[in-house]
């Protein structure tokens, strides 16, 4: 029983990590339907930003996040303006272009760092809280709390603020949104920027528990797509739930079946959901087509 509980907690905390990595993509892919394969590399940039801030300026990740996340967000705005916007109705070309960005970013960092893995020193990662027999890493718990807070914040932003409502309006019908006086291009720019900044934030938050390599984004990108599709495109709480499901499945599969197969198992779950219910668990049926139907 304790064992199951331990694995469950481990899975939930891992789910927090996946959820955190996915919130940005949920906004970019789930809400404005941009297929951004370079999202994992934005997480990677966040991690390196945090590393350099720690090593050169002595900043703790929890301070440097206020510097790094906006910087990555700015990079996102540039990507949106220069690469995505000219391709806004061509999802296949978006796949190509963002995959090209993925290769570019990953290998520029590889050339820059010469492939050595880095990690942020200090003892952030080693603090463990014990409740009974259950051990919880403090950083992972904090990650979980941050994921939850961001999810709540994003939900409120999209449903309660006029800017958030304009984001949803643009998703549903660009032309109608334009006639309502919404600046569609600006909304896309902003949404992509926020999504990128959230990826940067995720990267910073993960530095105490993950070692930093140029290829680290590859660990997250398919997981993030899986989480976003699993939970339901554009559904903020769906992505949160999707993250937890992926985390728990991975933990249980890793513990009870075979650690080597854990990724295959959640990929299979992802594929099954994608095929049976492409709108995801909490997405509206038909949501997967919204935003692709339109031509202008």
């Amino acid at each position, binding site marked *: 029983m304790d064992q199951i509980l331990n694995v469950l907690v481990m899975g939930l905390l891992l789910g927090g990590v996946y959820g955190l990595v996915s919130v940005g993509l949920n906004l970019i892919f789930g809400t404005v339907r941009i297929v951004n394969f370079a999202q994992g590399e934005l997480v990677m940039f966040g991690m390196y930003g945090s590393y350099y801030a720690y090593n050169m300026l002595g900043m703790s990740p929890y301070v440097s996040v206020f510097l790094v996340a906006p910087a990555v967000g700015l990079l996102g705005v540039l990507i949106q303006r220069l690469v995505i916007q000219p391709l806004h109705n061509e*999802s*296949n070309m978006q796949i190509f272009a963002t*995959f090209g*960005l993925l290769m570019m970013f990953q290998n520029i960092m590889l050339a820059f760092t010469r*492939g050595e893995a880095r990690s942020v020193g200090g003892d952030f990662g080693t603090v463990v809280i014990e409740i009974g027999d259950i051990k919880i890493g403090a950083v992972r718990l904090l990650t979980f709390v941050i994921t939850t807070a961001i999810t709540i914040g994003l939900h409120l932003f999209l449903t309660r603020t006029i800017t958030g409502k304009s984001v949803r309006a643009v998703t549903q019908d660009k032309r109608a949104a334009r006639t309502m006086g919404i600046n569609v291009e600006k909304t896309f720019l902003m949404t992509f920027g926020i999504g990128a900044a959230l990826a940067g934030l995720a990267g910073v938050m993960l530095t105490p528990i993950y070692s930093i390599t140029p290829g680290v984004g590859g660990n997250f990108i398919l997981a993030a797509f899986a989480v976003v599709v699993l939970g339901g495109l554009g559904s903020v709480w769906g992505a949160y739930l999707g993250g937890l499901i992926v985390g728990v499945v991975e933990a249980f599969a890793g513990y009870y079946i075979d650690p080597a197969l854990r990724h295959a198992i959640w*990929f299979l779950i992802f594929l099954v959901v994608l095929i049976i219910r492409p709108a995801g668990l909490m997405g509206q049926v038909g949501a997967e087509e919204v935003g*692709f139907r339109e031509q202008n």
Partner: protein
Amino acid sequence: MNKTNASRPLAERAAAVAPEVSGLESPSTALWRYLALMGLAGLPLVFLAKDPYWLNIIAFTYLMGGLAAAWNIIGGFGGQFSLGHGVFFGIGAYATAVGTTTYGASPWLIMVPAALAAAAVSMLISWPTFRLRGPFFAIATMAFNEVAFVLANHFDSFTGGPRGIMIPFKAGFANMIFKERWQYAVLMFAFVALVIGVSVWLRRSRLGYYLLAVREDEDAARACGIDVLAIKLKGMALSAFLTAMGGTLFTMYLRFIDPPTLFTLQDVGVKFALLSLIGGVGTVAGPLLGAALIVPFENFLRAELANALPGINLAILGLLMVLAALFMKRGVVGAFEDLVAWVKRKFGGRS
């Protein structure tokens, strides 16, 4: 012209109407153009037959050109953007490696059954995924590629796992292992000639027209009475069949395979698509042209820059991908066609 029986193939009838209107040349013109293209593609092989460094690049260019052309059948003609062709490539490769090392069979005998198996697998996994459109299809195929990677690593009693499989050097035609590089180059040339030949045939066949119709507008194609799913499955099976054949040739050329060489997206699944895109997606010659441009360029970058700055060659390739997506959506072939049209407009006058 007076025989207008409906039983004649669609392509033939279309060609009979008016070549300029249908955009389709007569069968003999098509054959001549195909032979001219392959003749042109064969020239480097003739001129550089003594240079082992270049022969290696040429052989690889033919192989990748053939694989890209195989991807182009479903990705270009059919518009189904698969990133999971590594799965079929891997089936061909593993069947060949296991068949030759464990059972001592000749790769020639393995090639076709392995390709048939890949075609069957492709239909099996595509049947549900073809419900998905656009990026969702691409992501799903990418997930299949990852599953294949994990499985190939895991079932090491069959695949050798991360250690891979090494095929011992036993030269001989029956073993598909050759002493001379040019023999491999000829083999790869035969492969690309086959795949391009299939593309030429397909472009003129009923199946090819249906694939184009599905790509242009799935709903309209369905409204015209086309069984969209069946057409997509046929196109995918053909594409997977040829891809697996390429997997066999790749394995016998390298004589070593492991999961990363077969399933790394940027070297396999995405590379096929990239070569087609650079050359001209959905055109007959585009994939080969893309390979002819990118494979030697990549070799050059790797030789010149990779030692100084690891990874910089891939970064440049990535940049190229972004630029191609932005400014050359129809590839080199498309850019050339645009140029011809522009010259005609500018200097052709009103005639």
